[in-house]
């Protein structure tokens, strides 16, 4: 190894710096949760990926109906739960579009409480979905008002084909 061997102790620290700098870029430019991505931002903010909220809404003539995560994952292929979790960590347009497509491709009904469900045994006719809106919110604590607010950080709307 010779001269190169004298620098082997720097390889791993340099890798750490490179990944950490990329993580800063991901956080500042793409709303990557600073808890993730190898930049050691854990335990530094309430905005952990686990505290973010995904809102998926079916837009119809009768109004907008939110989908619960369980309903969404229920109609999706295996692995969608992990994909949704990844979307909360890094809410890119591509990821939001894929979630909207998943929701748009399925058939939806209203249950007795008026909530959207994929259960076809429901008494209601199938909803005519005009669009699907997907939004990711991040929590922001407000000391002055003693409130935990949720700010939208990413939003996509997918129109259904006519």
């Amino acid at each position: 190894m010779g001269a190169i061997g004298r620098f082997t102790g720097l390889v791993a620290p340099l890798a750490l710096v490179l990944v950490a700098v990329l993580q800063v870029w991901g956080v500042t430019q793409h709303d990557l949760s600073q808890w993730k991505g190898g930049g050691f931002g854990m335990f530094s903010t309430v905005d952990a990926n686990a505290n973010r909220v995904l809102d998926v809404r079916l837009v119809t003539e009768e109004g907008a109906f939110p989908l619960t995560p369980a309903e969404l994952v229920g109609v999706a292929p295996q692995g969608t739960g992990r994909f949704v979790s990844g979307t909360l960590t890094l809410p890119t347009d591509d990821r939001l579009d894929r979630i909207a497509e998943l929701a748009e491709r399925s058939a939806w009904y209203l249950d007795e409480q008026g909530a959207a469900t994929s259960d076809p045994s429901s008494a209601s006719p199938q909803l005519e979905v005009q669009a699907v809106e997907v939004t990711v919110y991040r929590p922001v604590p407000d000391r002055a008002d003693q409130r935990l607010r949720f700010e939208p950080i990413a939003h996509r709307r997918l129109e259904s084909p006519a």
Partner: protein
Amino acid sequence: MATSTPTPDTPAGPTPTEARHRRIGELFWSSDPNELRPWEERFTLSATLLLLLLLLGSPATVPTTLLAVTGLVARDLLHRTWFWMAVAATFPLGLLRMSWLAWDNHHFLLLYWIVAIAITRLAAEPDEQLRRSARLLLGLTFLFATLWKLGTPDFRSGEFFAYLTVSDPRIANVLVALGLQDGTVVPTLAAELRQLEPGADAALPIAPGVWRVAELLAWATIAVEGAIAALYLAPLTSRWRWLRDAALVAFVLVTYPVAPVSGFGWLLVSMGLMATSLTGRRRTTLYLGAFLAIAVFTERNAVRNAIEQVLSLLPGVG
């Protein structure tokens, strides 16, 4: 272990105390500690803790698990370059089963540490290079952690810690015990968040006194983590290097009773052990003690169950 006979060319045999320490050493780090130079002993202990971490607290695949078990049994393997190359080649397979977005920060750090061990074995002075890696990895980890905390408004203002007091039962229980908070706060907020309409906000029932404590804690954390970063990144003279060990072990003892991330703690201990300039029993006691303390802090339920099981087997107990 071969016995030594005093001759004019060789020093007298070990004292009874030295002989006892060597026998203990045989159990923990080598079939013959006389053949190990001091840095090799340090490396062996550090590598042992790392292999235990791979077995107990990492997303290791079957090949990595088998290598870890083999390394713990056949201790000479710990000094073979191919062994560490094999660990470095197989460990990422476990990480790749997950999306990189799901990796925790200690998964990244564990990968760096394994790569550091493997690659520095190629150097003419592996000890010097690996110590440099350990020191820089520790310093940089704490540096980035400090920078994120300094750069995040909700951390500096104490809002993050205040939020933990109403959302994390472990921290809330301490405040309840001190009479600073009502025991119903955490479940009430959790229920409210579950029912919350997306985009709506929730009340944070945080007492004024808790806000002040949270702000103080935030700046204390920044000071402690910043100090550890500075101690590991600065080229200290040998007189002051013990400060690194003191700061790191103090951090571990204060952090891990409330942060349930044993993998991160054990990794810091493994790297701290490699970077230390302490020697002999002080080194072993300090770092093995820290390793065990993390196990007790983070796996207290498992430890309690194990003790109860052992006690139940004893006649006349339970």
